[in-house]
C-alpha cells in the first residue's frame, strides 16, 4: 500500500497533474466527483477527504451527515485529455468519520460481498457487454434521433459514426480498460463494447469510467450517448449481458473436464442460485421504470427464468468456450442486467444469489431449448421475470438475501426511492393513452 501511494504521489509530481478527481458512486449508480489540488493528495490518502454526504442520493442519514472519501491508490489513473491538460482520477471508498466502511457506499457493498466470496474460497470475475445508443443533438431534448439506419455488425458508410466508437475505444484502452470487441449493434445507432474480464471490483469501476468516457467523446462530436435501457420503441433495447466465473486459486471453479458439458457442480448450483433468486435481484439489476420495456419477448432480451447453452431468450446462457480454452473460458452469461444499473450493486446481488446456490447445494433444473413458441420455452422455465418495476420491488422487499447483500441502509433507501419513482410513473398520462383513448371515449 505504501509503495502504491509513493508511486501515485511521485507520478502526480512528475507529470505535473493539475487536478485530481476523487470519484465515487451514489446508490443509484451515478458517478460523483470531488476535485482536489495535487498537494492535498497525500493528506487525502492518510486521512481521507471529509464532505457532507447529505445531498448525495442514498448517503443521507439521521444523525451524522459528514463522511470521508478515501482514495484507493490501486485505482489511480491519469486521464488523457485532448487539450493536453493532465488530470487524474482515483476511485474512493466512503468511510464514516470513525474510519469504518460507510453503509451507504455501493463500492463498499461490493467489497463486502467479494470478501464473503473469498471466505468461501472464490474470486469473482466479470466481463460485461455494454450496449448504448448515439443520438443527434447534444442540447437538451427528449426525442431520440438516431444517426444511422445501420444494423448488426454493419461496416459501411451506414455506420456513419464508427470513428466515434474508435476514438472511444482508444480512450478506454489508454485508461487501462481493455476492449475485447466493439461493433454496431442490431438497432439503428446502437453500439456495443465488450470488455475483457477482470475482477468484479475493477470491472465495476471500469463500467463507471466507460459510461463517462462514452458520453464525453460523444459530446465532443456534437452528439450524445445514452445507456437508457429502451430509448426507442420497436427496436432492441440496450442490455449489459455480463459473463461471470468463479475462480478458486488458479483454477476456474466453473470448469470440470470430467462432466459432459464441462460445467462443474459449483457452476451448476451457482446458476441454480442465480435463477432461484432472479425475481428478488431484478429490481437491482434493472432499476428503472424503463428497464422493463426492454425485458419483453421478441427483442433478444430474457423474459423466462431459465438457462440454456444456445437459447438466447434464456436468462442465463452458458456460452460454449473456444476449443482447448475450456479451462479458462467456461463461464455463464447473465442476460438481464442493463447498462443503467449500479454495477457495484448489480454484481453484488447476482454474486450473492449464485453463492447461496453453491453454499446450499441448489439443484439445477433442465436446460431450455430454443423454442419458436413461448409456451414451449416456458415449460423449462421456473417462472417469468417481473413485468415491471413495481413487481420487482415487491419481490425484492420480501428477500432476506437482497437485504443482507445490500445492507439495511441501502436496501431501505433503494426501496423508498424506487417506490417513489413508480408512484410518479403511475400517475403519468402517457401519449399511448392519449392517442388511444382521448377521441375514442
Amino acid at each position, binding site marked *: 500500500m505504501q509503495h502504491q501511494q509513493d*508511486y501515485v504521489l*511521485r507520478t502526480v509530481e512528475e507529470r505535473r497533474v493539475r487536478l485530481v478527481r476523487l470519484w465515487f458512486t451514489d446508490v443509484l449508480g451515478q458517478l460523483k466527483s470531488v476535485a482536489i489540488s495535487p498537494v492535498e493528495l497525500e493528506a487525502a490518502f492518510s486521512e481521507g477527504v471529509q464532505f457532507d454526504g447529505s445531498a448525495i442520493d442514498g448517503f443521507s442519514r439521521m444523525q451524522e451527515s459528514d463522511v470521508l472519501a478515501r482514495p484507493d491508490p490501486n485505482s489511480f*489513473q491519469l486521464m*488523457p485529455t485532448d487539450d493536453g491538460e493532465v488530470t487524474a482520477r482515483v476511485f474512493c471508498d466512503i468511510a464514516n468519520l470513525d474510519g469504518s466502511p460507510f453503509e451507504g457506499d455501493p463500492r463498499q457493498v461490493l467489497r463486502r460481498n467479494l470478501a464473503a466470496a473469498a471466505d468461501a474460497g472464490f474470486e469473482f470475475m466479470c466481463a460485461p457487454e455494454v450496449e448504448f445508443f448515439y443520438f443527434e443533438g447534444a442540447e437538451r431534448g427528449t426525442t431520440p434521433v438516431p444517426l444511422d439506419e445501420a444494423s448488426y455488425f454493419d461496416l459501411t458508410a451506414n455506420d456513419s459514426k464508427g470513428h466515434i466508437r474508435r476514438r472511444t475505444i482508444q480512450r478506454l484502452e489508454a485508461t487501462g480498460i481493455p476492449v475485447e470487441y466493439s461493433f454496431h449493434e442490431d438497432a439503428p445507432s446502437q453500439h456495443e463494447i465488450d470488455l475483457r474480464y477482470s475482477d468484479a471490483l475493477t470491472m465495476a469501476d471500469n463500467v463507471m469510467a466507460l459510461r463517462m468516457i462514452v458520453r464525453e467523446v460523444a459530446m465532443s462530436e456534437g452528439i450524445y450517448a445514452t445507456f437508457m435501457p429502451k430509448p426507442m420503441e420497436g427496436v432492441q433495447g440496450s442490455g449489459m449481458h455480463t459473463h461471470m466465473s468463479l475462480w478458486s486459486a488458479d483454477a476456474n471453479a466453473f470448469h470440470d473436464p470430467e462432466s459432459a458439458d464441462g460445467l462443474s457442480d459449483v457452476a451448476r448450483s451457482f446458476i441454480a442460485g442465480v435463477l432461484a433468486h432472479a425475481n428478488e435481484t431484478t429490481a437491482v439489476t434493472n432499476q428503472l421504470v424503463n428497464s422493463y420495456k426492454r425485458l419483453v419477448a421478441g427483442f433478444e432480451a430474457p423474459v423466462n427464468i431459465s438457462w440454456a447453452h444456445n437459447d438466447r431468450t434464456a436468462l442465463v446462457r452458458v456460452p460454449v468456450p473456444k476449443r482447448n480454452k475450456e479451462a479458462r473460458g467456461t463461464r455463464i452469461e447473465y442476460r438481464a442486467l442493463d447498462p443503467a444499473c449500479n454495477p457495484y450493486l448489480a454484481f453484488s446481488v447476482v454474486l450473492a444469489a449464485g453463492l447461496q446456490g453453491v453454499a446450499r447445494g441448489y439443484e439445477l433444473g433442465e436446460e431450455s431449448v430454443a423454442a419458436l413458441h413461448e409456451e414451449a420455452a416456458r415449460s423449462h422455465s421456473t417462472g417469468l421475470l417481473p413485468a415491471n418495476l413495481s413487481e420487482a420491488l415487491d419481490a425484492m422487499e420480501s428477500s432476506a438475501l437482497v437485504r443482507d447483500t445490500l445492507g439495511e441502509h441501502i436496501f431501505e433507501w433503494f426501496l423508498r426511492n424506487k417506490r417513489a419513482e413508480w408512484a410518479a410513473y403511475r400517475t403519468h398520462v402517457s401519449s399511448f393513452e392519449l392517442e388511444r383513448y382521448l377521441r375514442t371515449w
Partner: protein
Amino acid sequence: MHPLLIWPDPAPPDIVRVLDLAGIAWEALGNHSEAGAGPFSGAIVSAEENPAAAYTAARSLRRGDSPIAPLLLCVRGSELGDLVERSDIFDDFCVVPAHPSELEARVRHLLLRESAGFELPPEIVTYESLELNVETYQASIDGRPLDLTYMEYELLKFLASSPGRVFTRETLLTQVWGYEYYGGARTVDVHIRRLRAKLGEEHAGLIQTVRSVGYRFGESRWGS
C-alpha cells in the same frame, strides 16, 4: 556510519553475535514498510526461518523512495534454488548456518563496496523507444509518456529488465507482486492485456505471449 538494518525482529542471535563482536551497529526491524525510518548503511535479511516473508521483505526494502543497498541475504542451502529468479533483491548472499568469520567478512566486504561508491541497478531501463526511469517511476515510449498504474509499471520494469527472456505467469506473480497474491495467475494476464492496451497498437507486440509458457518482452535471444 549508519546502523545496519536486520530483518526479522528479533534479529537472529547468530548474526547479532557476529555484528556485536565486530563492533558494527545494527537495528532490527520486523515491519519492512517502516524502513523509511532509516537511514541505514545496508541490510541483512535472514531467510532462515521464513523464506517467503524474507523475500517479500527484501523486495520491499529495494523499493520506495530510498531503497536500501547493499543487501545481504542469508539462506539455507536447501533454499538456494529460490535465488535463481530473485537476483534483483540482494547484492550478496550467505549460506547459513555460516561460520562467524565468513559472515563478518561478507558484511565488511559489502560495506566497503558501499563506501567505495557501490551503485544500485541502473536508474533508466531502455529498450528500443521504451524508457523507464526507475527513480521517478515514469515510463515513456517514442517520447510519449505512458500512464501506468503502479502494478503495470512494476510489471513492465521487470519484463523490460530482461529482454528476450521467457517468464512463466507464476514467476511473474512471485517476482512482481512479490507475495502469494490471492488473484492467481490470471491477474498476470489481466495486467499484460492492460499494458499492451497502453503501449498502443504499434508497440503492443513488445510483450509476446509464449504459448503454454508465459510471456516474453522484446526479441527472443535465440531469434524468432
